[in-house]
C-alpha cells in the first residue's frame, strides 16, 4: 500500500500540496503516482515566474514506461522549482513527499483538493 501523508492536501490527479499558511506552498506527486509510474527518468516543470492554474497541466513526468501530465493543484505564480529533482528524477521515486518535491507556488486559489483520508480512501493508500 502506498504511503499517504496526513498533514498534506491532495488533488485527484495525484499531486500533493503542503502549505504552512505564510510563504509559498510546495507541490509534489504522491507515492501512489510514483509507484504506478515506475522509475521516473524525466520531469518537465513550469518555469519560475510562470502562472499555473488549478486543474490544468503544468508539466510532464516521464518514467521508463510511460508519460503522465503534471496538473497544478492550485492557481498562482511559481516561485521555485526543485532543480535537484530535474537533474536526478529518481529522487521523486525514493522520497516523493520530501526531497522529491517539484515546485513552489505563491497560491492565489486552491483547486478542489482532498484530505489525506479522502485521497487514501479513493486510491488505496495508507496513512
Amino acid at each position, binding site marked *: 500500500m502506498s504511503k499517504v501523508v496526513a498533514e498534506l492536501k491532495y488533488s485527484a490527479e495525484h499531486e500533493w500540496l503542503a502549505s504552512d499558511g505564510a510563504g509559498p506552498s510546495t507541490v509534489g506527486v504522491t507515492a501512489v503516482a510514483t*509507484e504506478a509510474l515506475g*522509475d521516473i*527518468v*524525466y520531469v518537465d516543470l513550469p518555469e519560475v515566474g510562470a502562472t499555473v492554474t488549478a486543474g490544468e497541466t503544468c508539466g510532464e513526468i516521464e518514467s521508463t514506461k510511460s508519460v503522465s501530465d503534471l496538473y497544478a493543484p492550485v492557481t498562482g505564480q511559481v516561485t521555485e522549482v526543485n532543480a535537484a529533482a530535474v537533474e536526478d528524477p529518481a529522487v521523486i521515486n525514493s522520497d516523493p513527499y520530501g526531497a522529491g518535491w517539484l515546485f513552489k507556488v505563491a497560491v492565489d486559489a486552491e483547486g478542489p483538493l482532498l484530505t489525506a483520508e479522502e485521497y487514501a480512501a479513493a486510491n488505496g493508500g495508507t496513512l
Partner: protein
Amino acid sequence: MTENHTALYGEHEKAGASFTDFGGWQMPLKYSSELAEHHAVRNAAGLFDLSHMGEVWVTGPDAAAFLDYALAGKLSAVAVGKAKYSLICKDDGGIIDDLISYRRSADRYLVVPNAGNAATVAALLAERSAGFDAAVENVSGETSLIAVQGPNAEAILLSLVPEDQHQLVTEMKYYSAAEVGITVNGATGKLLVARTGYTGEDGFEIYLPNAAAPALWQALLENGKDRGLIPAGLAARDSLRLEAGMPLYGNELSRDGHAYAAGLGPVVSLAKESDFVGKAALAAIKESGDGVTSGRRLVGLKGMGRRAARGHYTVLKDGAAVGEVTSGQPSPTLGYPVALAYVDVEHSAVGTRLDVDLRGKAEPFEVVALPFYKRQK
C-alpha cells in the same frame, strides 16, 4: 479476456510483484524497480517467468518437411540440438508470429510462439499439417518456462547441475539446447535447457512441467542471490530487448507488415526448394523492393535530448510525417532515449537527422545502426 496465471504466480505475489496483462496472462511487470532489474541482467543476472510463452511439439517422419512448408525458414536444415528463429506468415506474407524452433531429434521439433499467439499458431500448424505425416501438440498449458539471463547466468545454472554434466552447459553454444540434469531439493531430473534469450545477454531458458516450476524458481533465486540474481519483470524484459534491437510482435511485427521491411529478410528462405505459406507473396515483395528501396523500413533512432519517443508517435523530416515509432523509451544502459520506428526508406540511412513529435513538440533524433547495445564477449 481470461486472465491466465502461470504456475509461478504465487512466487511473484510473494516477491511483491506488480502485475500487468500480457497476451491474456497476468504477468509480473516488475518486482521492485524495473531499472534495477534491467541493470541486474546487464551486470549480474535476472530471473524471468516466461511461462506465458507457447510450446508446441511437432513430431513425425514429415516434421522437418512440414515445418519447411508452414514456416518461412528452412527448418529441415537445422541440426539436431540447434535452434532457429523463424516467422509464420500469411499467404500474403503478413507476419502471424515470430517464433523459435528447437530441433530435438530428426523428427521432433519444439516450436515456441509468443503468448498471445500461441493458440492461433498451434491451430494454424495443425491446419497446415494436412497431408504431412506430422503431429502437432500444443503443450503450452502444462509447460512452464524459466529464464536466467545475464553474465552470471551460466554460473548460477551450474550450481544446480551435477558436475558430470557441467560440460553440457559450458559447451552449449548460443541458440542450442540440451537435456540437462538439474538438481532441486535433492532430486535430479533432466530438463530441456536452451542457450537463448531476449535480453542481449548470455543466458538460458529452461522448459519444465508446471508442477516443478515453483521449486526450480526458488532454487535458482536461492543459489543466484550471491551472484546478484534478482527476479525481473516484463518491464525490464522490454527495455532489454529494445536495447538489443530485437523486435516485439505487436509492436514491430504484425499481420500487416512483412519480413523485409522489418529487417528480417534473411529469415525468409526463398531459396529452399519446397513451397511454403507466403512464399509467392514474399518473393513478389522482395522483387518490388518494398521496405528496402521503397516504402518504409524499420530503423533505430537515438534521441539527442532527454525525452523519449513512444509507440505510435510520428517521425518527422522538416515537419512532414515520414514514419511512425513502434517502441521507444529511455535506454537504462546507454543513458539516452532509443526507439524503433518504420521510416520512409529515403530518410532511413544511418546518420539521418529526424524529429519525433513528442506530444506536440518536435524533438531531434538520429538514425543509428542496430542493435543499440551489444554485449562485450
